[in-house]
């Protein structure tokens, strides 16, 4: 895969810029001057061992933790420090760690809540697209989210985020608890999303899973970026596994 899709110029405004961001939770500094960039149309993976700071990074971008320092820009527009729901409205879709579905609401309710900010015509279009992308959800529209299988729940979490019509999608370890076959079917939706102009930032622990779907990757350790490069290049780099992903 080329580093940048030719349809988007390398010098175009990046979809997402994280610049020197520091996040503290209580007295702990969890992200420590972290910077990265996601270009329009790219799929970029943030790799890191458990506890490296991936979830904190995604939550900071989504506005769930206010950064102490640094800047976050969505297509050139500064978004750091805004209330989280406004960041969602600005175009950041978030598939959070643990999925955070509404267990006693139906699949249809989730799609409706995700799409509540779009005008009705756009909402209907997004909904039709989600049901085409995840046909199994169409067969479960009336079912409560709490009764879905793990794979179905993950798909619903992704569909809910996509219903907000995001320009950047944050995916926090979507492979957690899923069989490899199902993970691949989730990753197979990425080219479709790219077609629709959605850029993807994916957090993963597993090197193979994390790199199969990505153009580029960053390796994060103790809240800092320690390595970065094209996915193919990092896949060859023995330091990634030896030093940073453990095992």
């Amino acid at each position: 895969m080329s580093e940048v899709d030719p349809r988007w110029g390398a010098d175009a405004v990046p979809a997402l810029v994280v610049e020197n961001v520091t996040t503290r939770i209580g007295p702990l500094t969890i992200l420590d001057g972290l910077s990265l960039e996601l270009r329009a149309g790219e799929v970029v993976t943030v790799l890191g061992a458990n506890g490296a700071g991936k979830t904190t990074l995604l939550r900071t971008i989504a506005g769930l933790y206010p950064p102490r320092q640094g800047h976050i820009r969505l297509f050139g527009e500064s978004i750091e420090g805004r209330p989280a729901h406004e960041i969602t409205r600005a175009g950041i879709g978030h598939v959070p760690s643990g999925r955070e579905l509404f267990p006693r609401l139906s699949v249809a309710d989730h799609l409706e809540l995700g799409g509540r900010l779009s005008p009705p015509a756009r909402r209907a279009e997004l909904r039709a697209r989600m049901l085409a992308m995840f046909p199994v959800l169409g067969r479960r529209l009336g079912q409560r989210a709490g009764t879905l299988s793990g794979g179905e729940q993950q798909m619903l979490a992704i569909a809910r985020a996509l219903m907000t019509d995001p320009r950047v999608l944050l995916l926090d370890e979507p492979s957690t608890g899923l069989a490899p076959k199902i993970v691949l079917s989730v990753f197979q939706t990425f080219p479709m999303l790219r077609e629709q102009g959605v850029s993807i930032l994916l957090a993963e622990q597993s090197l193979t899973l994390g790199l199969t779907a990505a153009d580029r990757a960053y390796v994060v350790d103790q809240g800092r970026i320690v390595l970065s490069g094209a996915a193919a290049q990092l896949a060859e780099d023995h330091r990634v596994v030896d030093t940073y992903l453990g095992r």
Partner: protein
Amino acid sequence: MLALQILVNGLLLGGLYVLIAQSLNLIFGVMGVVNLAHGAFIVVAGLFTYWFASSTGINPLAVLPFVFIVMALVGAGLQPLLIEPLMKMGRSKAELLSLMVTFGLDYVLVELALQVWGSSFVSVPYLQSSWKLAGLDFSQALVVTGMFAALVSALLYWWLNRTDSGKSLLAASQSETGAICCGIDVKRVRMLAFALGVALAAAAGVLVIIVEALAPQTADDLTLLAFVIIALGGLGSYVGVAVAALLLGVAQSITGYFVGGNAEYVLPYVLLILVMVALPGRFRRA
């Protein structure tokens, strides 16, 4: 026939309990806050209705929409002042501190009510007789208030499950992060829930004072009654709480008939103890 009579009386009383409990449940579901001032809002609204209806001669039920709106505004004003600042402290800390804050609010409201209306028990003299139908005796006050309460509860249920703002509220109570991921302003949802919870409690107060006598010092009994019902029904579950409220109404009606005396008023406390001992897990959110 007697069994049916007891059942009907119990269900009508239970209808009123649905409203008393659902308003507490609403606030708890969204914020994890047990509003200890719940009964005080009921009592204040009830005593106001008594005072207003008896000094103007206006039908007490006509006061209900007015009380509902005013108390919704009171709730919307109090929430950002008293509850919202606690929400940033994390759930468990917020739960404990909110007990203290709402206890303080309860104290203030009850003392105010004592200053304004004194400590004697009063009831609105309205719908005192009963309807006879198919050999059964229907207390007019119970029928009318039970119907009103059922109507308000049904409207609440419809609003929660069928409207965008209602569903946003359910969503925020099931996953705050998930709600934010949908672009829902959770802070606003919390204010709405508190305003609505207080307004519904007040509506219940207007109805309760038609059925039984209230005094400011009744406030904590009503809070406890509502708490027992939501604990039995499953905290945060709307259907469970409605069923528990109806069952408690019937259980009280049965105890009142067969045991008599004050047994029916002791029943909620006995149930609370039984629930706490037998099902401690009930006190977690559904």
